[in-house]
């Protein structure tokens, strides 16, 4: 009994559990049982640095979560003050009022003289004429990253139309320093910008610091993939695997905290982090073997959202989406530091939701091993790290290559394939039953951050 946890409290997490985990804060640390049901939630956990684009959706969420108290709920990390009810509530003339999770309640109008006993319009795929339902899924209180929203038209419970939108854009930093344009890939963006930075300090970094940065990027990738996997398993309603992933995240997060800090120091923290990574690698490996042989996962996700290699190349898709359909495209393959570590890209062929899920688990295991190998080089005093500096630097982030180029007045930043993936998401959802469409959408691990515009 002493190993049993105290009772967690159902909580909505804003912007989402994945973002919290990437910021080194797990809602489970606060005794939260993450839920996407406003009815079930008894708390709302709000991140300290919530993007401004999510302020209004959060206000709506609070209003519906606790309408009788003016939107005041038991908050953590948020303003603990009453909120005014969201606009549109109780306004019967507003044909597009939104619930707190942004669900649009409107349905298509059929013109004047609408007869309540007869539904007119085009027949659906099965020949029945049904009233289409429009809803906006997101940007909060869903298994997707906070800031990602899908405008969907349902034909019964089948998706007839879908469009996925990312709402978040990074604000430029006040002091002019390069700020990561994507909170879900801060370490990778930081490394890309550092390599592209013409400042002399970046050129003479010792080998140990470069290995530590490799370890940091790989840790970020592993944590990102596992955090995504946890949200995906919550979508599938698989409680046991959610618990297993949470357990596998712990040594990764501890290792990230143990990483030597600063660009020019290496400390005994590298040894501690390496031992945590060994434990993490074993836990992730066990998880990977379980999921790889899981018939239940295969039945639930196999064949959904399939992307062919030819389509991936034509659309210029990148990252795990492309590698899951056989495209061997990984910026790390061209990186001399990774070649020294013996890196080989992980690739699968099926291109469906199952392949994307299993690929990310495999990559998470590989990343733990790469980070471990990099830190071992630090601990062993290995000085054979290549110098890396170029005007345009590319680093493989958790979702694909991230490119940075320093200009005189700022930065050119590009996340190749991100926009293509979002437009692909809408197409993959069409024609699928709602739950299957969500699995296809969630399997893409889209970023809610728009970079470069």
């Amino acid at each position: 009994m002493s190993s049993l946890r105290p009772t967690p409290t159902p909580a909505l997490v804003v912007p989402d559990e994945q973002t919290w985990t990437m910021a080194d804060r797990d809602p489970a640390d606060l005794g939260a049982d993450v839920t996407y049901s406003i009815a079930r939630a008894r708390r709302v956990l709000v991140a300290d640095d919530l993007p401004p684009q999510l302020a209004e959706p959060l206000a709506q969420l609070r209003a519906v979560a606790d309408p009788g108290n003016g939107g005041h709920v038991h908050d953590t990390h948020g303003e603990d003050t009453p909120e005014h009810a969201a606009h549109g509530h109780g306004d019967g003339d507003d044909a597009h009022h939104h619930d707190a999770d942004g669900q649009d309640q409107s349905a298509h109008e059929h013109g004047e003289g609408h007869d309540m006993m007869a539904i007119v319009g085009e027949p659906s795929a099965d020949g029945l004429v049904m009233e289409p339902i429009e809803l906006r899924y997101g940007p909060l209180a869903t298994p997707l990253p906070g800031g990602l929203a899908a405008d969907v038209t349902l034909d019964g419970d089948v998706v007839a139309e879908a469009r996925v939108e990312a709402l978040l854009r990074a604000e430029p930093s006040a002091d002019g320093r390069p700020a990561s344009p994507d909170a879900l890939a801060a370490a990778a963006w930081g490394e890309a910008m550092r390599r592209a930075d013409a400042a002399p300090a970046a050129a003479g970094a010792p080998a140990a610091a470069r290995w530590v940065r490799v370890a940091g990027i790989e840790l970020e990738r592993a944590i990102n993939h596992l955090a995504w996997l946890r949200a995906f398993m919550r979508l599938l309603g698989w409680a046991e695997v959610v618990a297993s992933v949470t357990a596998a995240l712990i040594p990764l997060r501890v290792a990230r905290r143990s990483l030597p800090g600063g660009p020019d120091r290496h400390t005994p923290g590298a040894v501690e982090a390496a031992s945590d990574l060994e434990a993490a690698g074993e836990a992730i490996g066990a998880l990977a073997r379980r999921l790889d042989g899981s018939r239940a996962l295969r039945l639930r996700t196999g064949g959904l959202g399939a992307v062919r290699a030819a389509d991936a190349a034509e659309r210029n898709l990148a990252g795990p989406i492309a590698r899951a359909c056989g495209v061997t495209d990984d910026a790390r393959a061209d990186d001399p530091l990774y070649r020294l570590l013996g890196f080989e890209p992980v690739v699968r062929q099926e291109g469906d939701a199952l392949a994307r899920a299993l690929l990310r688990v495999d990559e998470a295991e590989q990343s733990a091993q790469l980070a471990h190998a990099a830190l071992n080089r630090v601990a062993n005093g290995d000085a054979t790290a290549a110098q890396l500096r170029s005007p345009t630097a590319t680093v493989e982030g958790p979702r694909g290559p991230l490119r940075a180029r320093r200009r005189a007045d700022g930065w050119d930043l590009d996340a190749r394939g991100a926009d293509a993936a979002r437009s692909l998401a809408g197409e993959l959802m069409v024609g699928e039953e709602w739950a299957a469409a969500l699995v296809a959408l969630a399997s893409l691990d889209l970023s809610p951050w728009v970079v470069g515009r």
Partner: protein
Amino acid sequence: MGGGPGRPRLARSLALGGGPVSDLTPLAVFAVAAAGAAIVGLLEQLVAGVRPAPLALARAAAATLRQPLSRPDRRDGWLFHLAPGLLLIAALGALAFVPWAPGFRGIDLSTGAIAFAAALAYVTPAIFMAGWGAGRPLAVVGGFRWLALMLAYAMPLAMIITAVAAPAGSLRPTDIVEVQHAVPMALVQPLALALWLPAALAVCFLPPFDLPQADGELGGGAFSEYRGLDAALIGFAQRILLVAVSGMTAVLFLGGWQGPLLPPALWMALKTMAVAGLFLWVGRRLPRLEVDRVLSLAWKVANPLAILAIAYAGLITLLFYR
């Protein structure tokens, strides 16, 4: 309580006492429901790897009750507000037909086993009313899912009850318990048990059959708009359903209250909680099933096999029970 000579009409026995229903039956059923729901709550914590904490359960219930009732703008008022109560009545009705001991038989009807299934049928309109009444797209989807699924679950349930009742020659649950004095029906009719268990779990809309509410897909689905007392009633009703189907599983397949050394009611309670614990454990081990796959399995696999189970039951009845 319960039992007695002849089969007096229900209304008369309520007035006179004795017969299939005594004056204390409603109170006793509610007491069993409350105790069972509390124990199920503790089992949920244990299965989830959480330290069982009755106080935490009580605090959670109190917090839910403190919430104000929800009034969704586009709700269908009557359907929305009646649904939780109907769900609770269905659950209590099903529980009332479960016998717990020779001296505590609930509503002891000669057709009690089928009446149990009939009571469960009211879960269907309750959940559909909840989904439709909320007026939100994903709530409606949840309600329609249940409408399609419950029919698929209900048919195997009724057929398996028939199969299990055949050796007893009676649909009275106490007779079914007594016919298992030598061998439990779980060993005599394993096919029937294998079909009963998923159907019984599905009727409680618990994972992996939590399709009408589906936290990740539907954000609470058919129940997404309920707060306060309504939400508490739904949670209470779901736990009572679990106690009811687990108890009937013990009656139909595990010999009910029969067992050595311990008092009958305690045996029945242990068997019921073991089945409930099994259901909760399975729910954590598997991902949520897809609607289409469940329907396909129910109609194309479970129902034909249930017919086979009836035929098999007839054969063993002729060979061993007559």
